[in-house]
């Protein structure tokens, strides 16, 4: 399967959008494009399974390399393994849902969908890249669409949030940049060719002194994208000020770019990862616990979800930091589960906001009476967040815990226990928010006249909810995929 198709489809859709006239043309073209991409991802999944059944030798499948800058040994090198396929599926799901949820964006809709599609193209390119240069290229491509999406279509302090997000993420990129250059110049032995190519780097190995110096740069740089404490402060403002589709994509996919990057770096430099693992675990645990406590006090639904994203992404980093196979598998599961869950949550909040024009918990109430479908989506997302068995959140978190427990040693056990305990806090804020907004009396009399979800919103919700429930109830297929 030609992986570049995955990259071309969103780009072609984006260009096609530019030529459409009228809101209808724009959004149907976008929907068509993203649906095609979703089908392609399923196709990739099927093909991958087929190939994997026979091919056990190669780490990456469907590889393709084209020299980009031959003089610097930089190539457009793409390939996938189970991890990449899973992430591509996640992105495809969220994109279709995001397009559906944005059905009613009327202001500058052409630019909106164009930027959203370019954003997704960046993510797909990131997940299929095997050459670190190409990886970095796609990582940075997404900075400007994020800035514009938040700054133009957002709400609240949107310009401030957009600027903060852009600068902090660029800071992360700068760190990754330095790390990449360090790796490049220390490959190839003495006088040999330098390379950015990941499989080559994996095969040839890197000297220990080099990895010890550059691993922190790379890990922290990617970590900033995944809300590594203390560089997580772009998340609350950024996600909350963004328009719904952008929030869904930001929290659902963009934060996972960092996690994916961190994971690849760990695979590339295992000894360095082992050395730094206590620090990673420490920071991750702080993020989990502290993020949960900070969420408790939030009054705005979007801020609740944003802070809880910090806490949940802490699980990802915890799993990666623990470095056991189960823990890393848990981290990947958490990436996917949290992606779907937070996208659903943001979608539901967006739908509520569109109708009630408020996101403050204290001003909402009794929505179950007038908007049962949206409320159900809200509840599913909330329950997944607190790790109810039967939904994907439980599967992910339990795997991380089991993997973390495998590492004996007081510090690791302590970290695991603290992380477990924070689930209680998660339950507190989720149940409070859910209870107050959905149940109880109608807070404002005019809530009586609110409409429930329209077809596009229903479809988006069903798509994401199905994903969450599917993983929650039958996670084995995903498990298998990741292991391979």
């Amino acid at each position, binding site marked *: 399967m030609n992986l570049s198709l995955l990259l071309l489809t969103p780009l072609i859709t984006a260009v096609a959008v530019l030529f459409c006239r009228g809101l209808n043309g724009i959004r149907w073209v976008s929907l068509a494009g993203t649906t095609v991409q979703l089908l392609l991802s399923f196709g990739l999944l099927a093909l991958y399974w087929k190939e994997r059944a026979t091919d056990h030798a190669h780490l990456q499948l469907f590889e393709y390399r084209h020299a980009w800058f031959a003089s610097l040994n930089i190539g457009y090198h793409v390939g996938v393994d189970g991890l990449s396929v899973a992430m591509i599926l996640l992105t495809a799901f969220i994109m279709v849902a995001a397009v559906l949820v944005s059905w009613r964006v009327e202001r500058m809709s052409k630019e909106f969908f164009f930027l959203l599609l370019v954003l997704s193209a960046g993510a797909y390119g990131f997940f299929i890249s095997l050459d670190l240069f190409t990886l970095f290229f796609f990582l940075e491509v997404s900075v400007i669409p994020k800035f514009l999406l938040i700054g133009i279509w957002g709400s609240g302090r949107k310009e401030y949030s957009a600027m*903060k997000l852009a*600068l*902090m993420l660029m800071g992360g990129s700068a760190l990754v940049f330095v790390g990449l250059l360090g790796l490049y110049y220390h490959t190839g032995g003495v006088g040999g060719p330098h390379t950015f190519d990941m499989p080559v780097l994996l095969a040839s190995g890197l000297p220990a002194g080099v990895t010890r110096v550059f691993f922190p740069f790379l890990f922290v740089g990617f970590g900033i994208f995944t809300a590594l*404490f*203390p*560089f*997580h*402060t*772009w998340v*609350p403002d950024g996600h909350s000020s963004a328009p719904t589709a952008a929030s869904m994509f930001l929290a659902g996919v963009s934060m996972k770019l960092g996690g994916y990057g961190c994971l690849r770096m760990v695979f590339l430099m295992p000894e360095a990862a082992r050395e730094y693992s206590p620090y990673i675990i420490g920071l991750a645990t702080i993020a989990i616990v*502290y993020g949960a*406590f*900070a969420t*408790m*006090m*939030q009054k705005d639904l979007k801020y609740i979800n944003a*802070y809880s994203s910090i806490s949940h992404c802490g699980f990802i980093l915890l799993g990666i930091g623990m470095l056991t196979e189960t823990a890393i598998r848990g981290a990947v599961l958490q990436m996917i589960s949290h992606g779907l869950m937070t996208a659903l949550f943001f979608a539901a909040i967006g739908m509520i906001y569109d109708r009630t024009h408020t996101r403050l918990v204290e001003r909402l109430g009794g929505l179950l009476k007038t908007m049962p479908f949206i409320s159900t989506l809200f509840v599913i997302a909330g329950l997944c967040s607190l790790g109810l068995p039967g939904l994907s959140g439980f599967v992910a978190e339990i795997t991380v815990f089991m993997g973390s427990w495998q590492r004996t040693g007081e510090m690791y056990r302590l970290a695991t226990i603290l992380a477990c305990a924070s689930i209680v*806090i998660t339950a*507190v804020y989720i149940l409070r928010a859910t209870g107050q907004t959905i149940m109880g009396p109608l807070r404002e009399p005019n809530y009586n006249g609110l409409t429930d979800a329209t077809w596009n919103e229903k479809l988006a919700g069903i798509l994401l909810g199905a994903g969450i429930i599917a993983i929650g109830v039958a996670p084995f297929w995903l498990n298998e995929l990741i292991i391979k």
Partner: protein
Amino acid sequence: MPLTHVCFLVACLSISGIPPFSGFFSKEDILLAAWQTNKLVYGIGLFTSGLTAFYMFRLYFSIFWNKPREEHPHKMHKLPLVESIPLVILALGAAFAGFIPFSRLMSPGSVPETAHGIGLMAVPPVALALLGIGIAAYLYGKESDRPAKVAAAFRGFYTFAYHKFYIDEVYAFVTKKIIFNLIGRPAAWIDRNIVDGLMNGLATGTAWTSAGIKRVQSGKVQDYILYFFVGIAGLTVLFIYIYT
């Protein structure tokens, strides 16, 4: 409501541990085991089973024995079959389940337990139960102010127990005051002001530095030429210092 009355009575007798109802058998076994293991636990269990008899029969006497309290009671409907059949089945179970030889059916570690007969150990719990029933009958059998007087006599303890020993209040206190106020609020505040403040501080610091050095670009060519000279002089010093 005769059927309900009978079933309720059967249930109360069973829970109080009066033979030959099923509750007796289970209580007797457990108390026997407790006597063999830990006398303190046995004592508490004994006392509690007496209390159980008391409060169950308090309920029974209050509901079924006295005149209805309300002036205009609700019309009492006949119990539908759907409700009466399960009631009877459960009552039969409560009455006779004690005769099922469970010990032969359950066996920890796949070795069948040996049953033991009913011995002298059965007497204290039953006696206490009867005592409890008697006290309940005395206090609640007829309309009177005896319960109120007893409550008044034990006023402090009564209020304490009435409020469920204030355990709920403790929970609420811990959650609201400690977790929310002492941990949650500071966490949110720290994040907003200190951690984020650090990031914003970086930005402000840069702007401040920028403001600090702006004077150099003065607009006067003489100053420019001066800095030119200074630059050359500085470089010369630096260069010579490094190179030699």
